[in-house]
């Protein structure tokens, strides 16, 4: 059975029980599908036989999807190899091979877990980090909504940006979560007190918001190190999840972000935001390939429900369903 059929089976089978999520993928990936996939299909119509021109245009197409130059070049080499070895001439059949290989880049023979690590005895601490303007605060709100039947606390660790504390507070109110924040310039201090508050209130899930920091700012990265130490001191073993929030429209800098943050903190996963607005999002593959970090959540729209647990099968199906 080909990969397409396999995916179709999986997705169709789960469709009944998980309708909301599939619809969300479907809608959120519309733009990428229209851009990338339709061009890929056109390429198959323009060239019925595999040729150098076909490969060149395919390469441009993959690059234009932000998959990353290195990843694309490696991918193209592999594809050329396979074409040669398996004697593939028909571009229509090759299409299936392409999707298959893209899938392999991501999965890479590992069992990927999008599960969120939980703390069995005490609050689960989830630290949100990332560069400026990627949507950390909003993502916390959406995650809190996901865990609405738990006792959620939000800690306002972004003491730098004007209005950031207030923004989180409003979200706490809207999602019925507890909130801890105060006027201070010292994020580690706020987080220290916030975690004490979490213990006192027996919060089950604690989200810590942090200020946006560009990954090449050494002092801000040091501050993040300090924040980690403070968290570990109060709740040993925490943070249980450190999620790097990345804007889906980010280009190759996304790889550098992932590398730099991974060096400083134990990043456990990526949240890819604003995927509905971009036709690209190929950065998912690049980050996985070059930095080996899995995507745990993706943002497919502005509504609370539009933050979904990342599912590579649904993702690939959502992208290529018109071709399947």
């Amino acid at each position, binding site marked *: 059975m080909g990969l397409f059929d396999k995916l179709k089976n999986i997705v169709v089978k789960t469709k009944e029980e998980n309708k909301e999520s599939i619809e969300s993928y479907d809608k959120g990936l519309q*733009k990428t599908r229209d851009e990338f996939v339709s061009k890929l299909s056109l390429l198959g119509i323009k060239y019925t036989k595999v040729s150098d021109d076909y490969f060149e245009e395919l390469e441009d197409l993959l690059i234009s999807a932000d998959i990353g130059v290195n990843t694309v070049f490696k991918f193209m080499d592999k594809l050329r190899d396979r074409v040669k070895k398996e004697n593939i001439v028909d571009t229509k059949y090759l299409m299936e091979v392409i999707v298959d290989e893209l899938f392999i880049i991501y999965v890479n023979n590992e069992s990927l877990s999008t599960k969120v690590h939980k703390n069995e005895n005490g609050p689960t601490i989830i630290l949100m980090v990332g560069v400026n303007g990627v949507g950390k605060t909003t993502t916390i709100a959406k995650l809190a909504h996901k865990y609405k039947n738990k006792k959620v606390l939000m800690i306002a660790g972004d003491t730098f940006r004007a209005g950031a504390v207030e923004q989180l507070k409003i979200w706490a109110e809207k999602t019925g979560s507890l909130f801890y924040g105060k006027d201070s310039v010292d994020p580690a201090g706020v987080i220290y007190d916030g975690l004490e508050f979490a213990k006192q209130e027996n919060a089950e899930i604690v989200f810590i918001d942090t200020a946006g920091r560009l990954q090449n700012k050494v002092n801000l990265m040091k501050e993040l190190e300090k924040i980690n130490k403070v968290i570990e001191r109060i709740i040993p073993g925490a943070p249980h999840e450190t999620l790097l929030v990345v804007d889906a429209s980010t280009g190759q800098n996304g790889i550098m972000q992932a590398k730099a943050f991974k060096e400083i903190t134990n990043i456990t996963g990526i949240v890819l935001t604003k995927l509905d607005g971009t036709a690209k999002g190929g950065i998912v593959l690049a980050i996985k390939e070059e930095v080996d970090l899995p995507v745990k959540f993706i943002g497919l729209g502005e509504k609370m429900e539009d933050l979904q647990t990342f599912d590579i099968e649904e993702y690939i199906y959502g992208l290529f369903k018109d071709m399947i």
Partner: protein
Amino acid sequence: MFEYMGDRLSNAIKNIRGLGKITEENISEALREIRMALLEADVNYVVVKEFIANIKEKALGMDVGKSLKPDELFLKIVKDELISLLGGDYVPLETSKNPTILMLVGLQGSGKTTTAGKLANFLRKKQAKNPLLVACDIYRPAAILQLETIGKSLGIEVFTEGKENPVKIVKDALAYARESKKDYIIIDTAGRLQIDETLMQELKDITNEVNPQETILVIDAMMGQDAIHVINGFNDALSLTGTILTKLDGNTKGGVALSVRHLTNIPIKFVGDSEKLDGLSEFYPERMANRILDMGDILSIVDKVENVIDEKEAMDTAKKMKKGTFDLEDFLATLKQIKKLGPLENLLKMLPGARKMGIQNVNIDPKDMAHVEAIILSMTSYERRHPDCLKATRKQRIARGSGRSVEEVNRLLKQFEEMKKMMKMVSSGNMKMPF
């Protein structure tokens, strides 16, 4: 910021150095490197194709004369092409109307609100304008508060009118600006996707109501290949007059800068280059091309220094340096001025040959500077004027007072003496500045 791209380009060009003449074969490697560098920098792939084709054509047709070496000629071709990609001349802001209306638009998280504050600060400082900030982001929680906080810290008035109707807010803001003699209005709008028809209509409505002289797209310099769709989307709906690239102080390769002008003919007017509210610089294509190619950007350094240094104070200091009467009191004042320049590494990076000297990745810990300051502040005014009087007991007291060690106090004093010597040499003309 463009370091990485510049590195690749410089390497590619270096390989041509020894060549006697340029052929398609011997530049193919360099062109490949440049292509990779540009693609890795997120330059739009269509632009890359064109760029490479242009360079190839010009390089092959070029006449290797006697005066210039092939690599120098090649570099010149690349530089000229870069400048034309970045868009020939600097395009200043429209300021003719009274009040002039400027509207900032863009995606969520691109940095509109911060940029609004920076622009207001810039206009007041550089063009003696009396700007009014208008809070029109009625959707994002606490966005209005954010603009108010920024306005307060700058001492610039912010017009707010709740979260109801952006068109009405702008209309009322305009009336208020006329009444209170403001000559510039900066409208901060909510972030939106260019495909969100309802929200795009809102911007069109504002445009129809007040007809802004400037409609500027604020765009994240880290954006990938999708940037062009965003720019075109906003431009089709609103006829943009310019763009501002933000977060260029990250280690982004900023390929967007190379794509924007070329694909859309919309000029880049400013770049955001620090988190501080004076972190906004005018965009000069040629300076940027120089920086990409590691040819330095002295003009921008001069601009930055002029912006923050008190001229009279600087003259006084210079006189003292010349006379050799520069003491720790003056040193402290100078330190304070330097601190205003923002992170020093940003300036170092702009020096010609910064990459070759290996200082493009230097990190200066502001704490080191704070320690120096603490030591000097722990001295009495007499001690600062007469550092020679500092002997063991005084040094111990200063070390205790500043929380540093005596060794550190000694080191500082020694460095200060050396600096004084150097100043004398520079000012007496016995030594040239390193650049």
